[in-house]
């Protein structure tokens, strides 16, 4: 294959989202094409069309000039088009090996699981993305699931490989490994499409950058283009990167964890930390080193097996999510879809989920819908949430806008402590800037923030102080400018 052409692709989702509006794009063998665009620009939709998952309303797909009919993913697989999906296409209750080989089990009606597992493990080592073939997918952390999703696409072998945000949850080392494989593939004459919101990755791996906005191609640039220019092209205006303004008067201790241990894989062991009013404390660490346990302990969802948690100077005797929320701690959860929003419910319901009573929108068990919707509309305007109306279901919003709903709801509760876990994962540059601004505003008002993030750039950019989490322990503290040292601590090297 020399090239895959998408010509004049239209796709509209009911009732009125035009995800792709006359997009034309050429994917060439031997090159890495980066697709950039805001959340909701239509990148995923376009690539799902190229891989047969979604049918376009209009448009042509040509392979070396021959029209293809992609009626199903099976057709696309037959034409050598493979995809790593942003929302993983994994089957939770099957094993890693079964997921990887599904549909490509090889000869024989009876499965030889031992052989398949061995094969999958060998293969995963060869491509430098280790997976444990025997485990069930629903036992895996999100980073591991991402590796499985990538390994599967590579295992099938593809002429055209589409990678939809494959690096959002990978560690820097894993990302390097993936990039090595991608370069080998391009060198071997395959075509690769790479989607990411991390602009420095794009300039590192791409041969060509195409920018989508509102379902249209707005520009094509070489990868050497300054990142600021790429960001501006995506958003349609210059993006300001908010930065920590110095000198917020440090107040009282807002949150204190001492000798805290918990269950989890890994859980926390003997974690102690102090967070003061008016500061952002960064929790750095490679994914899977106890961040989830910490997040859940702070939110009262996961019990402490030993140690104490104190809020506003008083030690909590009985830890429960309600008690913690009442004492002014809110959480922006890392698993947005599971813990952050009720996807089928409307925007206004999600915005007022926890506070209907407190704000007086519920009386004697009946909702005051009109007043509640008005309040929700205010929040939508204040936080720049893009939605058709407050009655639209949250599940239909783009990732960035779903996250804005969560943040608007949590900050509207006027908390004293905000626990923000991976708050900008999967968000575009504009939405990321918005989230950062909200957190910095909270700090400026004298609030405390615990920022749990696997993104070292984010940690260094926002934090006043940094704790590093490694295998469930705090292995060190650092200032935000000690990047090298934090990196070493994250890798478990004594620094």
């Amino acid at each position, binding site marked *: 294959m020399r090239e895959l052409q998408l010509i004049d692709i239209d796709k509209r*989702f009911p009732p009125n989202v035009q995800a792709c509006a006359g997009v034309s794009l050429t994917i060439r063998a031997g090159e890495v094409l980066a697709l950039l665009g805001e959340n909701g620009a239509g990148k995923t939709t376009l690539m799902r069309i190229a*891989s047969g*998952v*979604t*049918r376009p309303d209009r448009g042509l797909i040509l392979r070396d000039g021959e029209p293809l009919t992609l009626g*199903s*993913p*099976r057709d696309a*697989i037959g034409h050598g088009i493979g*995809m790593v*999906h942003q929302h*993983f*296409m*994994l*089957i*939770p*209750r*099957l094993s890693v090996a*079964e997921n990887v080989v*599904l*549909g490509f*089990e090889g000869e*024989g*009606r*009876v*499965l030889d699981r031992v052989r398949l597992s061995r094969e999958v493990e060998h293969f995963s080592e060869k491509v430098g993305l280790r997976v444990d073939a025997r485990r069930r997918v629903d036992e895996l952390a999100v980073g591991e699931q991402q590796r499985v999703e990538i390994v599967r696409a590579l295992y099938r072998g593809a002429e055209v490989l589409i990678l939809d945000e494959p690096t959002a949850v990978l560690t820097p080392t894993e990302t390097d490994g993936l990039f090595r494989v991608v370069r080998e593939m391009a060198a071997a004459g395959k075509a690769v499409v790479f989607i990411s919101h991390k602009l420095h990755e794009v300039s590192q791996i791409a041969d060509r950058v195409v920018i989508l906005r509102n379902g249209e191609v707005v520009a094509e640039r070489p990868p050497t283009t300054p990142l600021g220019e790429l960001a501006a092209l995506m958003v349609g205006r210059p993006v300001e990167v908010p930065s920590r303004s110095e000198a917020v008067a440090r107040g009282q201790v807002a949150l204190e964890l001492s000798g805290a241990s918990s269950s989890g894989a890994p859980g926390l062991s003997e974690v102690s930390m102090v967070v003061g009013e008016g500061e952002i404390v960064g929790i750095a660490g490679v994914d899977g080193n106890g961040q989830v346990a910490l997040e859940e302990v702070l939110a009262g969802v996961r019990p402490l097996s030993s140690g104490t948690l104190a809020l506003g100077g008083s030690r909590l005797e009985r830890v429960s999510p309600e008690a913690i929320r009442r004492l002014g701690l809110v959480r922006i959860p890392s698993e947005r879809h599971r813990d952050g929003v009720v996807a089928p419910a409307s925007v206004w319901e999600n915005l007022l989920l926890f506070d209907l009573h407190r704000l007086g929108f519920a009386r004697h068990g009946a909702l005051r819908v009109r007043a509640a919707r008005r309040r929700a509309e205010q929040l939508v305007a204040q936080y720049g949430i893009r939605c058709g109306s407050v009655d639209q279901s949250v599940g239909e919003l783009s990732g960035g806008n779903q996250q804005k709903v969560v943040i608007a709801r949590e900050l509207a509760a006027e908390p004293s402590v905000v626990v923000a876990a991976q708050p900008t994962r999967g968000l575009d540059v504009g939405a990321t800037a918005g989230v950062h601004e909200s957190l910095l505003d909270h700090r400026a008002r004298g609030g405390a923030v615990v920022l749990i993030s696997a993104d070292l750039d984010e940690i260094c950019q926002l934090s006043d102080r940094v704790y590093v989490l490694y295998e469930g322990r705090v292995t060190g503290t650092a200032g935000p400018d000690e990047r090298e040292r934090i990196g070493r601590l994250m890798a478990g090297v004594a620094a």
Partner: protein
Amino acid sequence: MSAEAVVTSGIATTLELSTPIVFGGLGGVLSERSGVLNIALEGMLLIGAFGYFAGAAATGSVFGGLAVAVASATASALLLAWLAVHAGADQVIAGMAVNLLASGLTDFLYQAIYGFAGTPPVPGMGAVGIPLLDRIPVVGASLFEQSLLTYVAFLAVPAVSFWLFRTRAGLHVLAVGERPEAADAAGLGVFKIRYLAVLASGVACGLGGAFILTQVNSFSSDMTAGVGYIALAAVIFGNWRPRGVLVAALLFGAFEALQSILQSLGLSVPYDLFLAVPYLVTIVAVSGFVGRVRAPQADGIPYVRN
């Protein structure tokens, strides 16, 4: 009755009563593992029973009866598959529709065909002894003196289990029942697999219905009397696994056998209470051991591509 005779007849009755539950339950497992909720087991069993009656009456042969039983139950499964998979109907409603249709249609056909002529004799399926094994004291005469279909049912359990959990085709069924969009993205034919799985449940119910009929060799209105719902309970109690269905079927069968033995010994027992046992046990299984049983994730959810 001697104690030995009680044990022998208890075991024999248990196996007899379990057989249609095993057939229906296996049908339910196959269908639901692919993601199609199968409330229609009751109706499909009934159609299978009528099919055997009509087929055996017309051809005068057991195999004619079995063939028509399987064909007609599979045809009703096709209707369910069309409603649930193709038309994307609510699967509870689709299943109930099949049940109501089965009840009405078998009644109507019975009246229309045999109403005046009276019930024709149909060839039944007597007990088949397995040489040597049937001479084992106490259990031999009960375990190895059964209808051919009982052997088929009990041998089908490991066979279906192997097929579902050890073969490529089985893996595809599981994948489709857990997350059809992911199975689709992997290139599996979601619709085809679901159709075939539902049709397979029709075959199982055809055999189960035939067994119910050969117990009495005559057809009567709604003669399955809720066995299909008990099979549905066995599917849930058995955690959507063939072996689990077997355990549930034996348990439910044993309770019913116990009830009839107690009755034959002249002890008065609350019959209705015994009838409720399968459902009570299932409720306990579902609520008591939270997390023990878990339905396939996409069970009952139509797959729509966008």
